[in-house]
């Protein structure tokens, strides 16, 4: 039991901090932070599987997150029938061409021995295929993008329930990871980091600029939700009754009826946003708990031991007959799929898909800081890292503002230094995260909650 003491303590402090935000700022903000903490936790579980279990360094988290987000659009948005009519055929033809290219390349690679001729023929097949693709796709894309460009201008999705897209997001990210893993996993650690970082950038730039796919930088807004809408709640009888019941003591203090009605209205509006966020919290919490149980089981299973053995000494594990390439690929796919799931959850939570907002700073490096700070190789640690770092990331600015005001209070309001510092308060988050990472790396390299090896 002693081992769990610091885990429980760390989590209690975290919950306490979020409650503090609820009391001092507002419950709506606290729940928003909590939801994002949970999403970050899913991402860190994914990254932790790759880094903590297997020692694979994947700086491409941004790419999988974006792909998960794309899945939400592709699954939940209603199909744009007119776009399919004008350009669907070209797009389908393109998919067949891509499949054909892959098969031809595979055939050449399998059939012929390694030679210069083979390399050139593979290159020419790919190049010819790309030119053919462009010729086939160009008229279709143009037609699709001109269908009501202000509102649609893309193919739309399948019109399925949005929760389904979480699975599809994971599958998409997993299959991309299969391709990338095949290409890049043989590389040395720091090469792998750079390669995945750049590949993620390619993926995001494709999502950004292929407008027929998901409107690109024009964004998709008003996505479906697995939770009720605030407007519906505010007009429904049972919800208003519920709010009245909860706040009856406060309402009874108000005498005039019109004031009472006004106060109730305000309460209903506040409560509806809190209620919606609570619904999301419930969903996300379920996902986190399921993932936690599964990953914990996996970690202490023979499979988990095998992964750790490979991580700690590849040669020895290889000598014992473990297939390192296969295991690395598998864990790369699993981790990426979980990150894809998190990406889909995030877009569902926001209700909008903005490819322009995917930047490596926020979606790759911050997630890595979470894993390192929380505790590599320990799922509880990784989740805690997600909570702590996200909390700091959001709350660093208000705290910095408070401190700046405190320390410069003796200066006049118009003092240049003071004004400049107050203006730059939002950037203190980078400083906090950076210094936090450096301190943890230096004085507690195993993270807040270190990896625990249970002797079995």
């Amino acid at each position, binding site marked *: 039991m002693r081992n769990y003491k610091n885990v429980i303590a760390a989590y209690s402090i975290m919950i306490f901090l979020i409650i503090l935000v609820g009391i001092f700022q507002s419950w709506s903000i606290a729940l928003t932070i909590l939801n994002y903490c949970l999403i970050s936790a899913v991402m860190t579980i994914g990254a932790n599987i790759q880094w903590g279990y297997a020692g694979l*360094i994947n700086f491409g988290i941004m790419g999988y997150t974006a792909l998960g987000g794309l899945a939400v659009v592709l699954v939940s948005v209603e199909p744009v029938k007119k776009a399919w009519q004008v350009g669907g055929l070209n797009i389908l033809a393109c998919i067949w061409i891509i499949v054909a290219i892959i098969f031809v390349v595979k055939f050449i690679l399998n059939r012929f021995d390694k030679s210069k001729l083979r*390399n050139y023929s593979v290159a020419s097949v790919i190049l010819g295929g790309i030119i053919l693709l462009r010729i086939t796709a160009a008229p279709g894309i143009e037609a699709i993008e001109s269908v009501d460009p202000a509102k649609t201008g893309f193919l739309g999705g399948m019109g399925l329930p949005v929760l389904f897209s979480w699975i599809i997001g994971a599958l998409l990210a997993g299959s991309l990871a299969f391709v990338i893993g095949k*290409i*890049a996993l043989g*590389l040395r*650690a*720091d*090469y792998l*980091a*750079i*390669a995945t*970082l*750049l*590949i993620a*950038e*390619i993926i995001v*730039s*494709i999502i*950004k*600029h292929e407008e027929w796919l998901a409107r690109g930088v024009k964004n998709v807004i008003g996505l479906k939700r697995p939770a009720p809408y605030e407007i519906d709640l505010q007009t429904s009888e049972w919800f208003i009754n519920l709010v009245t019941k909860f706040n009856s003591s406060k309402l009874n203090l108000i005498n005039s009826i019109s004031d009472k009605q006004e106060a109730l209205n305000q309460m209903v509006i506040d409560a509806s946003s809190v209620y919606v966020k609570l619904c999301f919290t419930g969903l996300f919490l379920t996902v986190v708990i399921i993932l936690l149980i599964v990953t914990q089981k996996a970690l202490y299973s023979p499979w988990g031991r095998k992964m750790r053995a490979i991580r700690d000494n590849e040669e020895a594990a290889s000598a014992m007959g473990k297939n390192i390439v296969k295991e690395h690929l598998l864990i790369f796919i699993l981790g990426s799929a979980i990150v894809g799931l998190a990406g889909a959850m995030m877009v569902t939570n926001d209700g909008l898909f903005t490819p322009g907002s995917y930047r490596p*700073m926020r979606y790759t*490096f911050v997630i*890595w*800081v979470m894993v*390192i700070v929380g505790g590599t190789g320990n799922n509880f640690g990784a989740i805690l890292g997600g909570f702590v770092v996200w909390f700091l990331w959001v709350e660093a600015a208000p705290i910095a503002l408070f401190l700046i005001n405190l320390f410069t209070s003796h200066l006049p309001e118009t003092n240049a230094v003071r004004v400049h*510092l107050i*203006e*730059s308060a939002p*950037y*203190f*988050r*980078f*400083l906090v*995260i*950076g*210094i936090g*990472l*450096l301190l943890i*790396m*230096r004085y507690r*390299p195993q993270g807040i909650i270190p990896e625990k090896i249970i002797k079995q």
Partner: protein
Amino acid sequence: MDFLNAIIVLFNFTVIPALAYGSQLALGAIFVTLIYAVLRFANFATGDMMSFGTMFAVILTYYFQSLGFGLGVLPTALLTIPFAILMMILYMLIIDKFVFSYYRIKKSPPVQFAMVSVGVMFVTQALIRIIIGPSDRRFLDGEKFIIKATEFKEMTGLAEGITLKSTQAITIIVTLIVVSIMFWFLNRTKTGTSMRAYSDNEDLALLSGIDPKRVVLITWVIAGILATIGGVLYGLDKSYRPFVYFNNMLPIFAAAIVGGIGNPFGAFLGGYVIAFAEIFVTYAYKRFISYLLPEHLEPDSLLQLLSTDYKFAVSFSILVIVLLIRPSGIFKGKVI
């Protein structure tokens, strides 16, 4: 005549910009490769370190302008580069003393170094944004053009003109000077040779009496010079915006790896490979072709291989191909 026009179109819209952009990338790539060869880690703070040095140049440029100093037709920023370099080296040495040296003495694996450099990246980025803010700044003054398109047309009587911005000329000239001095230093001086020895085989170098502290110090000094000059040249040519500098890290990495990481000459050429590839693949060849073909064969489409949105993607794809076919880079890496 048409043939000449076609060549000039190509020259004006691809070769000149690619040479300038390639020079900027090359300086950054040599910086990455030098750190990798001597200190043995991939420095993820590259872009932000370049940005940090440039920031001093920008601030000093504004200060000098307010004092009325200047170089006439040349940009004032050139005058501020030595001061900016000094500040940059100071910053790098402080970072090295308090952050990197601990891991170097402990002989940590390169992955840990990379993560530490991510921490340095965050801190540097915060400092930049707190000191100068995230907005877009232009700090170019002096003469803007060396050759204007209209003047060129009048001079030669051709239908197409060549525009040569002064920043492009300065970039190319300064890069050539800096890089040649650096190669002279690495290959001909005793200190340079000791650096190469240290990079090649640390233990043997220590055995033959090379002082590791001195080697590290000199590496940071050279890195500071390269980072600041590269950053300032990029800022003069385009504009100074911290976020863009962070993103520039990616093609710079691509250039360093394509050239063979750890090999400065490879990195130098890698910069140009990446720049030319980016610009040649995303350039619309319509105007070029229409000069060469008879009129009735003129193409309808833009004849663009990929739209300019995929500029970065091109360089990254080249990187992926190089990693697949020849992971050690075009020019064998891992030695200075």
